[in-house]
């Protein structure tokens, strides 16, 4: 089945178009809309965006693969991204990781039916380290206890 924007995203697209000097500028916003609509970016959607913006599909692939937040394959419902950069590491990132690993029975870069666990670079929450992003929601000033409560709530 081929991809088309749903109504909300079509309106968003029309709103954004006159705000930029060139349609090409809409590459990132369009890829975001696709990801929100489908959960990932399919090759159907790439073709659709390429037609809408009148740019080559190859260009869209080159962009989609450059940015770490775009998924080109379906992904677990909850993507746990634990910040691993210096401030978080100094403040106990390792405890958070092992707590998640124990709780879910998966290691870093593994998934189960509900969760995927990855370590990511600095998320800009150094003052409230350690932290993780659950999909797009920040959870800061973590302790293993708080992490466990969060995972249990989402598992239900």
């Amino acid at each position, binding site marked *: 089945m081929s991809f088309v924007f749903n109504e909300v995203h079509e309106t968003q697209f029309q709103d*954004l178009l006159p*705000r*930029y*000097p*060139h349609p*090409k*500028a*809409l*590459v*990132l*916003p369009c*890829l*975001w809309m696709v990801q929100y609509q489908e959960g990932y970016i399919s090759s159907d959607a790439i073709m659709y965006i390429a037609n809408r*913006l009148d*740019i080559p599909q190859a*260009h869209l692939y*080159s*962009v989609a693969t*450059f*940015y*770490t*937040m*775009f998924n080109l394959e379906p992904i677990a419902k909850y993507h746990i991204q634990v910040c*691993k*950069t*210096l*401030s978080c*590491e*100094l*403040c106990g990132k390792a405890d958070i990781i092992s707590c998640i690993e124990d709780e879910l029975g998966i290691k870093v870069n593994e998934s189960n039916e509900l969760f995927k666990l990855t370590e990511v*670079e*600095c*998320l*800009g*929450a*150094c*003052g*409230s*380290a350690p932290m993780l*992003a659950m999909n*797009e*929601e*920040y959870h800061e000033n973590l302790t293993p206890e708080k992490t466990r409560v969060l995972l249990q709530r989402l598992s239900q």
Partner: protein
Amino acid sequence: MITKLVSKNFEIENSHTLKVAKKNGAYKSIDEAFKKPAYVIETEIENSGLRGKGGGGAPAGAKWCLVSRAQEMDSLAAASYLVVNADESEPGTFKDRQILEFDPHLLLEGMILTCYAIGAHEAYIYIRGEYKFFAERLNEAISEAYQDGILGDTVKGFDYRVDITVHRGAGAYICGEKSALIESLEGNRGHPRLKPHRPSPEYYFNKPTLVNNVETIATVPFIVNNGADAYRAYGTEKSPGTLLFGLSGHINNPGIYEMAFGESMQTFIDTIGGGVKGGKKLKAVIPGGASTPVLSAEEVKVARLDYESMQSLGSALGTGGMIIMDEDTCMVTALKNLLSFYHHESCGQCTPCREGTAWVDGIIANILHKKADKGDIELLSDIAKTMNGKTICVFAPAVAMVIDGFILRFREEFEAYIEKSMGEAHV
């Protein structure tokens, strides 16, 4: 020590809403400023000595002039743009998000004034993809401002149009580099552009463009309201004004604190920071985001928080986001952490950076995994030398400075670690 110019409204309840912001004086500066010619703001900013607060510390006034001059020189470049850099990704830096969360209208006010000063009608806020909450907050503030007639075809009833659009990135540290940011904003991979041999503005779709950090633009309303001298009253002669300094790592009171430039780093850590966590001794501080060379505890004692003092210590003030490390921190592990970061974030455009970051990351990993070689320190320095100054942007030179900084100040610890690593491997 605390001086609140930009952060004055942070603690007020619901400070992010237009109603509260207006009660605290938001958008007032526009009434006066828009009655005067545009160059008045530009001159005021130039006289204030405002320096870019995204890490580089370049004079903002001079940067603004480049945009107006490019417009004058090239009649084809009739349009110009303002782009606000909210791609805050430097490890240890978390200041811009405070402005976005607690006072988005201050940023919008600064943007409107800046647009007027440089003759721009379209402005973009490029915000890192991970900051979804903050992007939403900005969008709420922007739609409030549109409804109130502050943004749109007639800013507060004046015959001047300003449109602001929030543009989300999608996870790439390098997009904080201004030319990579512009590339990303044009819908491309975030690859930095070659720099011209003389001062020049950025070009967004071939039109002269000003790129400034969130905090820089958020400082503009204070200067326009109170004048250049009021801003110069704070800080030092060469580093006037204030900065949102950050504390993270092994510290009792992590957070963001606005202070004038020139304060003592040690006093800041001991008083406002509440000292090192667990009463331990200080070992090292990374002074302004991961890309600034680390300082030893001895250097911290004499360090003052302004651009010139930090430079004289062989480091840089950067973004002012300090990472504190206590006496138990292993410097080899700390360097490994940073080098993995750079390895992951190198955009891959220039060979010395793409390959170099992978090599140094691998060498440090070897040291940590008992596979060290005797000449590893020399090899690290050698690769750092090869990376420095041979690439399009300053990413690789920053990595080189980070490596040199760690080795220069903690050489003995590295040597001991390597010795131990080699010894254990032979057992």
